[in-house]
């Protein structure tokens, strides 16, 4: 797994060098409509544990809707989502988080009323004592674990390259740093599956490359990643598998080479007649 962290591997050596893990997420005949409009229609695909699995497609293809369905933000109109073998369709996001699924958001969802470090510490929620009485009376065990959570959050911020913002208020941080703050917060919950919704959107080329490195490092620790991203260079460079959507339906699936060579995908992106 260690070689994933190096940049000069071409995608196909990567896919040949690794074994395909057991499925961690299965989407079966999933659909969701909004007022008669089908945002996702009869979509089925499988994500293997340990993969970086990208979801691509033109604007409006249903990528973010798919994320919201998988993470429980929306309830499906039909079909089901299996996570780690269990049917989790429509399960509340906080329950999914307890099962090991976390995500970031395309439009930032930062706790702007807190410091950067506290944002990441909220990510430790599931691993801390969150009951009322120990909090009100400041039980020593709670204080001790809280201090550990603080150190851990600081370490995670350093891991994603945010060490200089540890004492900053989240509201004072630049956009690119906030994108990484969301990743650190999600990682703090120790997910098995991490969904990243356009982590590189709005970033310049340097920042994009840094995010690219962060994602590869995270994947190297064994976390499965589902990535929605418009930056094709990034997607083609780091994905093990790609699912291409168009108008809420599956367009193509396969390795980056297969998808890049697929005529339907090219047509959907360039708008050519089918």
């Amino acid at each position, binding site marked *: 797994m260690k070689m994933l962290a190096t940049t000069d591997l071409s995608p196909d050596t990567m896919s040949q060098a690794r074994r395909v893990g057991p499925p961690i997420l299965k989407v079966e005949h999933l659909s969701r409509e909004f007022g008669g409009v089908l945002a996702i229609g009869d979509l089925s695909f499988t994500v293997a544990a340990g993969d970086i699995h990208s979801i691509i497609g033109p604007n409006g293809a249903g990528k973010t809707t798919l994320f919201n369905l998988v*993470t*429980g*933000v929306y309830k499906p109109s039909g079909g089901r989502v299996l996570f780690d073998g269990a049917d989790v369709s429509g399960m*509340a*996001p*906080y329950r*999914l*988080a*307890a099962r090991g*699924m*976390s*995500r970031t*958001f395309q439009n930032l*969802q*930062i*706790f*702007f*009323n*807190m410091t950067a470090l*506290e944002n990441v*510490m*909220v*990510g*430790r*929620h*599931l691993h*801390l*004592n*969150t*009951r*009322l009485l*120990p*909090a*009100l*009376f*400041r039980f020593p065990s*709670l204080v001790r674990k*809280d201090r550990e*959570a603080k150190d851990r959050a600081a370490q995670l911020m350093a891991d994603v390259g945010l060490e200089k913002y540890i004492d900053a208020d989240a509201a004072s941080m630049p956009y690119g740093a906030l994108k990484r703050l*969301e990743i650190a*917060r*999600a990682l*703090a*919950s120790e997910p098995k599956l991490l969904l990243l919704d356009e982590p590189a959107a709005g970033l310049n080329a340097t920042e994009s490359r840094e995010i690219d490195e962060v994602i590869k490092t995270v994947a190297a620790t064994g976390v499965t990643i589902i990535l929605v991203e418009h930056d094709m260079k990034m997607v083609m460079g780091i994905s093990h598998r790609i699912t291409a959507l168009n108008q809420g339906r599956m367009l193509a699936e396969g390795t980056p080479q297969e998808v890049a060579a697929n005529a339907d995908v090219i047509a959907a992106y360039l708008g050519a007649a089918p």
Partner: protein
Amino acid sequence: MNALLHGRLTGLLALGAVIAVLPAFLPNNFYLDIAILAGFNAVVCVGLNLLIGYAGQISLGHAGFFGIGAYASGVLVGVYGWPPILALLTGAVVVGLLAFLVAKPILRLKGHYLAMATLGIGIIVSIVLRTESGLTGGPDGMMVEPFKIFGFELYGEKVWYWVVGVLLIGVVWLSLNLIDSPMGRALRAVHGSEVAAEVVGVDTARFKVLVFVVSAVFASVAGSLFAHYAGLITPAKADFFKSIELVTMVVFGGMASTFGAVVGAVVLTLLPQALTVFQDYQQIVLGGILMATMVFMPKGLLPTLAALLPARRRA
């Protein structure tokens, strides 16, 4: 100033010092009485601030919880002869249950439903207090027995000043503890972004219900003790305008600042005393203060002042 806002010990010591030396500057019981009223308001506001300032939910019925606590003590002690401490605890449990029952279905919904529901509770409580005159004395209110515990009777401004002072320090301590804990961060996260809190495992509905119950219980305990101190309670203490006054204190003093809530309660308790000419226009003045605060210092008095101080203390 950062330390005063967030530092636990510094702030508590400062508050304790102010409470300790204040009586030396208060010439007579009239001033002591105002200080005690400010203290009771501050206790309620510290609790209400947990809900409004930290968790970002609105309650327009907290005076109702204060009133239930006050009348629980008045009725259970005066009519049924219960020991005051038992009446106080019973009032707190009843208010806690009521808050839970109201919040549980409402807080699953998003938006301002809680504000509407609490508005309703406040109005119902004040109507019940006005009409159940057999128990509550109706609109004229009722006399309340003094607070007796372990054979001691709490009586007079000098004694009650210290009771309220200690209560306020205790409540501020609990509030600071809560804010700086995993549950406190979860509450603030709910305010910041509910969906982001959910995806890292925060059961947002549970924490909203919990903080609502806690803040209601704070109000109830303050209400019980106030009833014993004042010796007379009226439904006006539980009505809608009193609820608005409490919200104004929190917003004016500084949302998401425990000491701000104390400052807001103290300033707005003193204001009507200082400006007696405005007596007939008190609601208008209060509304004006609320609007002006939202427009000119949306963070409230204490956080705004803190931001004006030189940066050296914040480094």
